[in-house]
C-alpha cells in the first residue's frame, strides 16, 4: 500500500516536474522568437510568403464561418425577442456578439486548425529531416529565418482577418434580417451603426493579436522541438492545434474579463 502510494506520488511528481520544465522551455523559446522577430534584418520575402499563406488563403474559411455565425445569431435572436423593437435588438446582439467574441474566436480557431497545423508539421518535418540543422551550418539562424517570419506574419494577418471576419459576420446577420425576417434595411443598418463601439473593435483586435501570438508560438514551438520520426511530426501537429485552441478559449475569457469584467 505504502509502495503503491509512493509509486503514484513519484510518477505524478515526475510528470509535474516535466510539465513545469516544458513551460519554462516554452517561455525561453517565446522570448527568443520575440527577440528575432524584432531584430533586423528581416527576411522580407519569407514574411511576404507567409502573409499570403496565413492571410490570403485563410480568407475563404474565415469568411464562411463568420458569415454563417452571423446568420445563426440573427435567426436565433429573433426567435427569442418578438417585441416591436426587434430590429435594434437583433442588430445589437449580432454586432456585439460578433465583434466582441465570435469573430475573433472563430477566426482564431479556424486559423489554428489551418495554419497552426501546417506550421507545426512543416517545422517538425524540417527538424526530423535535419533541415534545421543544415540551416544553422549554412550561415542562417533558424530562429531568424524560419520562426520570425511566421510570428510576424501571424501578428499582421490575424487582426486583419478578424476585422474582415467581423464585417462578413455582420453582413450574414444583415442578410437574414432583411431577406428572412423582413426587417427594414435602413432601420437595421442605423441600429448597427448606433451600437458600433470603438472599445469593441479594440477589444477584438487585442484578442486577435493575442491569438496570433498563441497560434504561431505554440505551433512553432512544437514543430521546432519535435522528436525524431513521422510520429514526432504527428505529435507536434496535434499538440499544437489542441493546445492553441485551448489557449485561445482561455485567453478570450481573460481578455473579456479585463475589458468588461
Amino acid at each position, binding site marked *: 500500500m505504502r509502495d503503491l502510494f509512493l509509486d503514484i506520488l513519484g510518477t505524478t511528481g515526475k510528470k509535474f516536474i516535466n510539465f513545469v520544465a516544458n513551460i519554462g522551455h516554452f517561455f525561453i523559446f517565446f522570448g527568443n522568437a520575440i527577440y528575432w522577430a524584432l531584430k533586423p534584418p528581416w527576411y522580407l520575402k519569407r514574411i511576404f510568403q507567409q502573409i499570403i499563406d496565413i492571410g490570403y488563403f485563410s480568407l475563404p474559411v474565415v469568411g464562411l464561418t463568420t458569415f454563417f455565425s452571423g446568420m445563426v445569431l440573427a435567426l436565433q435572436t429573433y426567435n427569442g425577442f418578438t417585441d416591436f423593437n426587434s430590429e435594434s435588438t437583433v442588430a445589437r446582439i449580432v454586432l456585439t456578439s460578433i465583434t466582441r467574441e465570435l469573430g475573433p474566436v472563430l477566426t482564431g480557431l479556424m486559423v489554428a486548425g489551418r495554419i497552426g497545423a501546417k506550421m507545426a508539421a512543416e517545422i517538425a518535418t524540417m527538424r526530423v529531416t535535419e533541415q534545421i540543422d543544415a540551416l*544553422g551550418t549554412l*550561415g542562417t*539562424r533558424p530562429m531568424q529565418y524560419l520562426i520570425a517570419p511566421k510570428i510576424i506574419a501571424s501578428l499582421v494577418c490575424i487582426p486583419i482577418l478578424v476585422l474582415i471576419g467581423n464585417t462578413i459576420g455582420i453582413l450574414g446577420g444583415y442578410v437574414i434580417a432583411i431577406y428572412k425576417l423582413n426587417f427594414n434595411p435602413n432601420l437595421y443598418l442605423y441600429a448597427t451603426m448606433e451600437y458600433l463601439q470603438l472599445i469593441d473593435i479594440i477589444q477584438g483586435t487585442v484578442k486577435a493579436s493575442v491569438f496570433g501570438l498563441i497560434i504561431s508560438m505554440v505551433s512553432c514551438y512544437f514543430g521546432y522541438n519535435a522528436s525524431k520520426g513521422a510520429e514526432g511530426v504527428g505529435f507536434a501537429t496535434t499538440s499544437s492545434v489542441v493546445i492553441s485552441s485551448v489557449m485561445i478559449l482561455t485567453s478570450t475569457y481573460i481578455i473579456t474579463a479585463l475589458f468588461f469584467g
Partner: protein
Amino acid sequence: MKKRKKKKIIIKVSDLSKSFNNNIVLKNINFQLLEGETLAIIGASGSGKSVLLKNIIGILKPDKGSIEINDTEMVNLPTKLKEKILLDLGITFQHGALFDSLKNWENIIFKTANKEKMNNKKGKQLAFSIINQLGLQTEILDLYPSEISGGMQKRVAIARAICGNPKILLFDEPTSGLDPVTGSLIDQLIKTAVRTVGGSAITITHDMASVCRIADKVILIDNQTISWSGTPKQMFNSANTKIQEFIEPINSKIFFK
C-alpha cells in the same frame, strides 16, 4: 611516412566522449585532420560516425573533450564566433537535408546567396557551374528536391556543400546510394575540390573503393573508440580482424600491387 614539411592542423579532436542517456556512443576519441588531407571514417552501422561529425559541427555537444577547428576551441564557443567558423565548412548530411520548400538551384546557392545578393539568373548560373561537374542536367535546377531521384538529391546536397569553395569539407556518406560510375565521379570531385582550394576533407563512408580513391588516412570506429587508424595501403595489409572484415569483399590486389 615522413613528412617533408610540418602541416597545419585543421581539425583536432581530443578525448571526445558522447552518450545519449545510458547509451555510450563515443569514448575518448582522438584524431587530427591536417591541411591538404582527406580523412575517411569507417565503421559499422550505428558505431557513431554521424554522431562524431555532428559533434564537430556543433549540432551535438560532447559530454567531454575538445574540438579545435583552425586552432579555435569549438565547444562552448559563442554562437556568433561559431557561425563564422562554420561558414568556411562545406557539410553534407547523411540524409541530404535539402530544403524541400526551395528549388534545387536555391538549395545549392543558399549560403552564397545569404552572404551576397544575387539575381535569379546569376544564381542559376552559379548553381549550374557546380552541378555540371556532378553529371547533372540543367533541367533539375528548377525542380524541387522531392522531384528528383535519391542519387540526384545526394549530388545536389554535395553541390550545396561545395558552393562557395569552402576550405574544410565534411561529408556523411557522399557516395552511398549512387551507382559506381557516379560514385567515382563524386570521389573525383571531392579530390578536385580539396586540391583546388588547398583544403581538407573528412568523409564518412562504407565504400572501400572510395576510401582507396580519395583517403590519405583512415580511421575505424568500433566499440565506441578509434580501434584502428592508418593509410589505405596499411589498411589492406592490416591484421586487424575488424579491418579485414571491412575489406574482405574487395580483392585488395586490384588496388595495391
